[in-house]
């Protein structure tokens, strides 16, 4: 199909580079330099979507980020689908595949449109709150139907094939927007030696200058833009970022930029390039030169395809060489938009009329139009539009001076395009992100950025200065001011000249009257994407939704993917008028990040999958992998969970590991335990304050177990701490709790007891720790060391330096299994060597590696707790039956002492930790099962405590469990019942939590 709307010459497209693309399955041609929107318009495609609620046909309205209708599905393959791409911002590339997102069976012939026509009257704002309620059971069915209509585009169903990057940037000045103001600000600051980043969402710099016929500095505006851009690019202190949207402005001058690297080239990033880069920028100063968006006028049937923004029409003509129609009617409240009629006329197509809402427009542009013989209908408005899938004509009538009502008879004009302009709204979005409220400015009829605590300057149209000369001047000023604030020398930059155009005063008009009252007139759209109409806003106000936030929420105005860039000001003004308030009284809603939608993948960057969180491995990890370990995530650690042999089930492996350990020797990689080196003359005193038990008398060479409590008396970590020297200790913590404990120690030291001389160093990663456990463990150790590890000279809870397998080691005779145990610590780099030596010598003892699960079983047989599994932040040592680990007589009131004596903590019926034996020894209770005393009680059943640990004990030939039971320590031998999810009621007996070797003889063999 030919490009029937393409001009023979002009524009910034390259006619020598034709590109083919498809839209809704049909192939079209455009040129390099086109956007998808300009190419569609060039080909005369009117229909780009169906509206969300009423399914009305919609066409392209705008030429940039504010486009509400042309929301496309992009992607040639399933994995490269992208929903909701604005055709106005998508650069055309060869092979681009696009489609409209709504309409069934297709956008041209849409069944829902019929429903919209018929049912539209039944669907005022908030209609769903008023119906679908009865009968109650039907809501699910109603909702399914409502949900059918949800969404615009669709999510891909396959995983993303592209990658994304992030960069952290620091700069002196961040310039947002590369129109005339932004370019001047950047140029001035850069020449003054500032480190500058300048970003613009478009593919090339220049902003509005790209679509204008103006001159700057005596040359075509684009030529001036090119020369400035070239200078900036050549400056090594400047980062130039086209196709880069500054989408968020956060506290302390932190900004985020979404740079699209390849979306203009292909569906899938070519050659493994990254698809998008996210810049996280910390700027000393910021210049917002974000420009302005044109405001459409609100009139009946203003959504018929062919109704466009005036500025957008000019952009399509001047930048893309596309005239999107044949007969134009322009409606305007200002002089500025006259340019569109001139552009249209100069492109050789017919301007039916300029309909100016003002009584006596004068300015230079008005004269220029008249000189070209264009009819100017002053004091009039387009009050209605004819046509359904394309404008076929308009109704024009004269209106009252304040624009509130139609005063004259209605005249029909033929037209296929209606351009409208209600003036310009500064793009205040970014200025709002850190909580600043925009201020209404009567002079420019719009909101401008309000007061802020950020180090922010503004320049150009965003400040309400809509002329090119003003933007250049203000941009220069902002650049100079930034230099001054940064303490840099002023730069010598001349402000280039731009033509001054004399314009007459614009009219503040937001809503074009109709002969009928708003409620009865044809729909006058305010927010296209959410189908919000003027009558809808009036209805919301009528029903009492008077706050602008209520209006927004009740009508859904501004909730679309365009976030109300076109409609919000009109909507507020319509509400204000209905409520008899001024616009500043009515106020504005606040814009939030993002300025335009941002790909999730770009925000996530590479921080998914294995990089989602660091994985930590012990020094013996390679061995574990080679020996078939299954792993468990513990904090960031990958810990061996169990070591199944070929064909073994998990339980079989555990049984084997458990029996081997108690019969001969097992070995555990315990490197992940947190290790904190504590030194200083007050180290001992400090330990006494942070542990519940006493440390004053622990001699060098001895180890002690301690419970660490919070101020409320509840257990939060535990571990063994060893005395390495009079002023030197090694603390161990749980694997997951190491960082928390270190922070805890530092916090108390630095904020409460800075007078204590004590130093903490994390040494977790410095040591590899392997625990050999079982009756033959001493024999094995003796084979690898010449040091004396005999029963007599190396007692339980001793530690000593030794040389193991030729490597200097610290060996601790501590036990978490109840067996004779040695915990061998060597420098991490020697870990694998020592581990392998142990296996070399251990084979004859059937040395068996075991993981966390067997460790859990073995310690549970002994009734040892695991902080975090058997505790949950609500139990104190006495609840655990561990009063032996509390020393109430220490001189210093240790952390947790006062807390555990509060009224609720000394109740008699607190839940206490006990052992649980199921009456049927073969039943292993699920961990988390809840106990009851009365199995016949009805729901809600009074619960008395849950099972925290539960295992099959191969050593005992039965199940064992640890559980909390209300008042359990006084209920030994009594029954407790566990009603399970599967319906079983398991009977069990309360017993001591020490199931094996209650006298503790095994660890002293």
């Amino acid at each position, binding site marked *: 199909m030919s490009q029937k709307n393409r001009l023979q010459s002009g524009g910034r497209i390259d006619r020598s580079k034709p590109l083919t693309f498809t839209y809704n399955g049909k192939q079209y041609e455009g040129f390099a330099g086109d956007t998808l929107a300009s190419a569609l318009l060039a080909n005369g495609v009117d229909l780009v979507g169906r509206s969300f609620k009423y399914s009305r046909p919609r066409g392209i309205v705008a030429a940039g980020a504010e486009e509400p209708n042309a929301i496309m599905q992009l992607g040639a393959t399933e994995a490269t689908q992208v*929903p*909701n791409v604005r055709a106005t911002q998508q650069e055309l590339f060869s092979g681009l595949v696009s489609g409209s997102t709504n309409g069934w069976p297709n956008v041209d012939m849409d069944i829902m449109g019929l429903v919209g026509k018929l049912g539209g009257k039944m669907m005022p704002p908030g209609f*769903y*709150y*008023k*119906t679908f309620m*009865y009968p*109650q059971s039907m*809501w699910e069915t109603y*909702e399914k139907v409502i*949900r*059918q209509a*949800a*969404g615009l585009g*669709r*999510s891909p169903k*396959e995983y*993303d094939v592209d990658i994304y990057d992030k960069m952290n940037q620091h700069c002196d000045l961040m310039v947002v927007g590369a129109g005339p103001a932004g370019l001047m600000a950047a140029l001035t600051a850069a020449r003054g030696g500032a480190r500058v980043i300048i970003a613009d969402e478009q593919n090339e710099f220049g902003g509005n200058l790209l679509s204008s016929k103006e001159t700057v500095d005596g040359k075509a505006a684009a030529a001036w833009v090119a020369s400035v851009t070239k200078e900036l690019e050549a400056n090594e202190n400047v980062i130039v970022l086209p196709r880069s949207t500054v989408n968020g402005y956060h*506290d302390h001058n932190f900004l985020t930029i979404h740079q699209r690297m390849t979306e203009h080239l292909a569906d899938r990033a070519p050659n493994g390039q990254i698809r998008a880069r996210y810049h*996280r920028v910390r700027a000393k100063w910021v210049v917002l030169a974000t420009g302005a968006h044109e405001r459409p006028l609100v009139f009946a049937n203003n959504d018929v395809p062919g109704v466009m923004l005036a500025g957008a029409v000019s952009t399509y003509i001047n930048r893309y060489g596309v005239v999107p129609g044949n007969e134009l009617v322009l409606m305007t409240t200002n002089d500025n938009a006259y340019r569109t009629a001139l552009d249209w006329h100069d492109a050789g197509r017919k301007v039916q009329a300029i309909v100016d809402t003002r009584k006596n427009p004068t300015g230079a542009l008005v004269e220029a139009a008249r000189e070209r013989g264009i009819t100017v209908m002053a004091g009039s408005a387009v009050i209605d539009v004819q046509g359904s899938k394309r404008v076929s004509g308009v109704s024009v009538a004269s209106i009252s001076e304040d624009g509130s009502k139609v005063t004259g008879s209605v005249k029909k004009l033929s037209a296929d395009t209606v351009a409208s302009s209600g003036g310009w709204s500064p793009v205040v979005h970014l200025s709002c992100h*850190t*909580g600043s409220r925009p201020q209404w400015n009567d002079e420019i009829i719009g909101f401008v950025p309000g007061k802020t605590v950020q180090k922010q300057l503004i320049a150009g149209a965003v400040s309400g200065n809509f002329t090119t000369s003003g933007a250049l001047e203000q941009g220069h000023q902002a650049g100079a001011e930034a230099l001054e604030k940064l303490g840099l020398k002023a730069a010598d930059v001349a402000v280039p000249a731009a033509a001054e155009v004399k314009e007459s005063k614009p009219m503040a008009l937001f809503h074009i009257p109709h002969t009928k009252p708003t409620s009865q007139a044809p729909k006058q759209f305010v927010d296209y994407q959410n189908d919000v109409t003027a009558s809808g806003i009036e*209805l919301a106000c*009528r029903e*009492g939704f*008077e*706050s602008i*936030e*209520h209006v927004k929420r009740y009508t859904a105005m501004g909730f679309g*993917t365009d976030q109300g860039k076109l409609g919000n000001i009109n909507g507020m003004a319509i509400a204000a008028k209905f409520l008899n308030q001024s616009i500043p009284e009515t106020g504005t809603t606040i814009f939030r*990040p*993002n300025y335009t*939608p941002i*790909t*999730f*993948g770009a*925000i*996530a960057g590479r921080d*998914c999958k294995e*990089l*989602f*969180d660091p994985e930590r491995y012990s020094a013996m990890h390679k061995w574990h992998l080679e020996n078939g370990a299954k792993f468990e995530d*513990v904090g960031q650690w990958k810990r061996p969970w169990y070591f199944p042999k070929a064909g073994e089930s998990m339980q079989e492996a555990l049984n084997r590991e458990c029996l081997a350990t108690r019969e001969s020797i097992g070995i555990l990689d315990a490197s*992940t335990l947190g290790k904190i080196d504590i030194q200083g003359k007050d180290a001992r005193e400090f330990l006494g304050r942070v542990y519940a038990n006493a440390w004053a008398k622990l001699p060098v060479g001895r180890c002690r177990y301690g419970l660490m409590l919070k101020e409320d008396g509840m257990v*939060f970590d535990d571990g063994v701490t060893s005395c390495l020297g009079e002023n030197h200790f090694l603390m161990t913590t*749980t694997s997951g709790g190491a960082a*928390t404990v270190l922070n805890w120690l530092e916090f108390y030291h630095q904020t409460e007891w800075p007078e204590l001389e004590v130093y903490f160093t994390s040494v977790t990663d410095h040591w590899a720790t392997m625990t050999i456990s079982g009756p033959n463990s001493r024999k094995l150790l003796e084979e690898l060391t010449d040091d004396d590890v005999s029963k007599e000279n190396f007692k339980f809870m001793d530690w000593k330096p030794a040389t193991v397998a030729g490597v200097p080691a610290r060996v601790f005779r501590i036990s978490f299994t109840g067996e004779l145990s040695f915990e061998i610590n060597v420098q991490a780099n020697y870990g694998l060597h020592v581990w392998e030596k142990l296996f070399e010598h251990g084979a004859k003892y059937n040395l068996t590696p075991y993981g966390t699960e067997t460790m859990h079983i073995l310690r549970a047989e002994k009734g040892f707790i*695991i902080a*975090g599994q058997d505790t*949950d932040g609500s139990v104190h040592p006495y609840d655990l039956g561990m009063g032996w680990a509390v020393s109430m007589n220490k001189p210093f009131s240790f952390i947790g002492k006062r807390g555990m004596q509060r*009224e*609720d903590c000394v109740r008699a019926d607190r839940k206490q930790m006990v052992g649980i034996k199921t009456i049927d020894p073969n039943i292993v209770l699920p*961990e*988390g*099962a*809840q106990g009851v005393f009365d199995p016949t009680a009805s729901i*809600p*059943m009074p*619960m008395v405590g849950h099972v925290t640990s539960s295992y099959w004990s191969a050593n005992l030939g039965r199940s064992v469990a640890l559980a909390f039971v209300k008042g359990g320590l006084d209920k030994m031998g009594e029954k407790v019942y566990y009603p399970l*999810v599967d319906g079983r009621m398991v009977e069990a007996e309360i017993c001591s939590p020490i199931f094996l070797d209650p006298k503790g003889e095994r660890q002293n063999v």
Partner: protein
Amino acid sequence: MQQYSGFGLLKHSLSHHENWQRVWRNPTPKKKYDVIIVGGGGHGLATAYYLAKEHNITNVAVIEKGYLGGGNTARNTTIVRSNYLWDEAAHLYEHAMKLWEGLSQDLNYNVMFSQRGCLNLGHTLQDMRDIERRVNANRLNGIDGEVLDAKQVNEIVPILDCSDNARYPVMGASWQPRAGVARHDAVAWGFARGADMRGVDLIQQTEVTDFIIEDGTVVGVKTDRYGDIKADRVGCVVAGHSSVMAAKAGFELPLESHPLQALVSEPIKPILDTVVMSNHVHGYASQSDKGDLVIGAGIDSYTGYGQRGSYPTIEHTVQAIVEMFPIFSRVRMNRQWGGIVDTCPDACPIISKTPVKNLFFNCGWGTGGFKATPGSGNVFAASLAKGEMHEIAEPFSMFRFHNGALIDEHGAAGVAH
């Protein structure tokens, strides 16, 4: 009073919707009320509604400094569930759940409560123990719940990555079928309409600047717009601003107000039918009836009244979502925002008498207030009506932070070994 129905819509469409009555009046306050509720969010409006409806106390004013439902009610991610661990919390949230289940009909206002089910994922063995513990407790408390394995989870949400490729593979989940989402604004508006209809005065754009306290008893409030307004009892339901109001009454609360952020994607065609939450990976998502993926995470670490938090929190949340749902990588984030949540040390609310007689506070809901809205209002209304705490509210006294009877709903501490 106008009743809402499909027939009513049809009737009004014939008169171009010109004759809809106001949803609520805009009254000038009286000199004195039986009860003043400070704060016109969901909880405050629900309180007023139940005072009028269930206790026949209609001489009530709700005083709101902004607009009705404009605080956290307007900013939450609308998840409703009752699968809490401890009995006290479970009873409170299940009380709310039962009210949710007939709320649209009770209010004659469709709050679009949609019971599409909620999965709380487990990624570690400890997660799974905690899930088992919670589900067992829920069932014995009469709350629906199941423990699912990874395969069952994947059957419910096929787009969730349940493979071993994830950094923390999904091991299973708790599943509450009755959980779901509701239309948050409608909840505030429905309660407001119901309260107004029964005679409650809803006073918007009016700030309570102080309490009037005589001999340790509150007797009214001072306002910026209408001067002093007397009351026999005052209930303060101001969420993030509770500490500020408590300071005016001369006491402190065990609260910190933190930014809580949330975000939505652009609307996409329905693809996620349930609520999926992961505490371990730190993100949750559901899809609204409009098609937006509604996404949230944890609070920011610092206190803040700015209704915004820090960017890395959003970044981590999005990472979590892409980690859980890799197909969303090319879907785009539309908007983010923040609320101010008043967090309690035990992650449970305060519904309580205070050191000032006749002054009651309902606060500390942290990140979980929306789901409790009807239940919170219901028990708070009963407490205000009788001057004594309702039995479900009783355990949530602020004085539990003195005697130690905390109700720790942070979930079992996630450390192990």
